[in-house]
């Protein structure tokens, strides 16, 4: 275990910034903490436990151009656009038809479409172990787990990213990482972990990328005392995290309670916005749209969320999840039933941001305590409205 003195932090970040962009939590003038690119002198905010948003945006961008395209007239063809095939293409004679179709392929404007995939090397420093697990859980979705599709955009950024987590000294009452298999000193997915102790940080690495982080010459071997102190910080932090609900059986109970009127009661104060999903380190649903100006365009993907009332709205006007309560049910079921069925783990790392940032403080712990547990018979009677 290494030790980084507090007064070496800026130099350490400068070292990391040598080959990559460095992203750290920064407190703005308005007191809002957000992950921002670091530049020399930028103060790192580690006292406020959680940045408003996780660092998700730096790997899975809120909006990202993934395809650029342009229409242009094909060189020589541009000079002599031949529309005659439009008349002949419907000819009954197969040969005429084939010739006309061949002409059609080359005669009109050509189209060039190129993928865009920028993935600069970056180090995210100062994110919490729950945020790191958020990436681990998204990795399954984008990483072809179970033989599904492999997403080159996410993975390019993911593989170019080093995650240096910081142990949570003072977990909040809304933290529930230990309930969902994590820990305030969790290392799953982390390349390195720093722990605040008197005078600085202990630093541990868990991967090749993490070893590179340790390459900073200002690091010294941690003393026995520092190592012990770090252990104490970790133990105390674990003690501060409450068990929020019983995870055992949640998946089965959600399945059993799918038509339970309890969903309506819990969703009453939901305003169906997307805050919970956008501050969530795990939520990954997205939209795809085209933007084009004068023949040159981009296809982009942007975060979207299942609370958006138009999310599933079909052109016909039919909406499979028209009711607020249906959309509400979808998010929690996705995290604790749908995702586990496909990816054999959970889509929640217990950061509690969805609770503290929800405009009406919808509490995922309450939702799962109620709907993730067996429901009284009386309320599950079919067709009974709440």
């Amino acid at each position, binding site marked *: 275990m290494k030790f980084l003195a507090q007064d070496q932090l800026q130099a350490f970040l400068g070292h990391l910034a040598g080959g990559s962009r460095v992203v750290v939590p920064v407190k703005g003038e308005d007191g809002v903490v957000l992950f921002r690119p670091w530049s020399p002198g930028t103060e790192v905010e580690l006292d406020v436990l959680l940045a408003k948003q996780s660092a998700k945006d730096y790997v899975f961008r809120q909006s990202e151009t993934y395809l650029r395209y342009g229409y242009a007239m094909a060189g020589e063809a541009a000079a002599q656009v031949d529309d005659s095939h439009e008349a002949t293409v419907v000819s009954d004679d197969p040969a005429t038809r084939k010739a006309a179709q061949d002409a059609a392929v080359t005669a009109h404007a050509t189209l060039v479409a190129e993928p865009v995939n920028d993935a600069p090397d970056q180090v995210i420093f100062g994110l919490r172990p729950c945020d790191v697990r958020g990436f681990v859980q998204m990795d399954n979705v984008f990483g072809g787990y179970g033989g599904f599709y492999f997403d080159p955009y996410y993975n390019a950024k993911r593989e170019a990213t080093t995650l240096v987590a910081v142990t949570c000294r003072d977990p909040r009452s809304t933290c529930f990482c230990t309930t969902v298999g994590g820990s305030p000193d969790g290392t799953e997915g982390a390349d390195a972990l720093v722990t605040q102790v008197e005078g600085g940080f202990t630093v541990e690495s868990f991967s090749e990328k993490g070893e590179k982080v340790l390459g900073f010459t200002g690091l010294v071997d941690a003393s026995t005392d520092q190592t012990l102190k770090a252990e104490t910080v970790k133990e105390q932090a674990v003690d501060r995290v409450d068990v929020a609900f019983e995870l055992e059986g949640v998946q089965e109970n959600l399945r059993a309670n799918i038509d339970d009127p309890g969903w309506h009661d819990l969703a009453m104060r939901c305003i169906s916005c997307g805050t919970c999903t956008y501050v969530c380190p795990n939520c990954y649903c997205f939209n795809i749209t085209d*933007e084009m100006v004068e023949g040159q365009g981009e296809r982009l993907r942007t975060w979207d969320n299942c609370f958006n009332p138009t999310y599933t709205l079909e052109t016909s006007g039919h909406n499979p999840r028209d009711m607020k309560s249906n959309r509400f049910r979808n998010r929690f079921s996705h995290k604790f039933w749908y995702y586990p069925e496909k990816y054999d783990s959970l889509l929640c790392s217990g950061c509690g941001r969805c609770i503290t940032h929800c405009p009406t403080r919808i509490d995922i712990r309450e939702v799962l305590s109620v709907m993730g547990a067996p429901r009284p018979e009386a309320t599950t009677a079919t067709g009974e409205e709440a």
Partner: protein
Amino acid sequence: MSDRQAKIRELARAALAEDRVDYFIGWKQAYNPSEMIPAFVRSADEVDQLVWNPLAHHNLTAFLKRKMPDPPNARIGICVKGCDSRTLVALLQEELVDKERIYVVGVPCDGIVNRRRIEKEFADEVVDISFAGDTVTAVTRSGESKEFAKGDLLFDHCRTCRYPNPFYADDMAADPIVEPDDRTPMWGPIEEFEALSPAEKDAKIAEAFETCIRCFACIHACPVCWCWDQCVNRCRQPALVGQRVDTKENLMFQMVHMFHVAGRCPSCGACDRACPVEIPLYLLHRKMNKELYDMLGFEPGVSLEEKPIFQTFDVNDPFGEH
């Protein structure tokens, strides 16, 4: 204060017991006493969860909007503060809410405390906020405690509030409190903003909207944003607002909202308080309020009889100059 809470409970209990409403919406404590949330009470024996204190910031009128009631034809009891009632009046003026389906309990309001101001005083989590007279005491999870004067914590729009009593209510939770004699609006930060140069204004706006994550909390929490569930901001035909999240599109997004609720919006600040990244959206709407007031002498939602400003025409209205 506790008198009002007792009266809210009493009125809610009666409405539910007499089956005049299917559910009653008030405020209750969240997972700890430092947070208040909307409460939906379905039976008379559950009314004791209802709470009234200066943290009761939610404008519950948002839950009367199209597609919010569940079931859709529910008869709803609801609490409104002064500013909340102005949004309700705006909806009633346009007959967007059926007066017959609602039972309104008016709550005279002494001003709401901005919890975020307290939060910023500590690195640790605030878990308890209590009130004794004009003293507010906040306690963190690790036991640190600080006292504040309530006046220092109020929202800006509460400090300058001239309408603390509801304009529309079936029953009142207390006698109306004394209102200021001078009803001339105070614009405070808006006037400061107007004094800036164009470049300074641009910079200020860019700074404010850079962090928007387009989560739509502002729109959905807005009580007068009626077509929230089919918002043109999400529409592709026409595509007024692009999906790209950047300062320009974010500003466009908020401008669309501002213009759509102009004339209905009394700048109650519900958007501002819902915003997870704390963009001062309230100021945007306040600016529109000032324009309407300066140009047309209009204040939204202060009279049930008045027609909405953009649904009336007067040849004497000024256009493009003031």
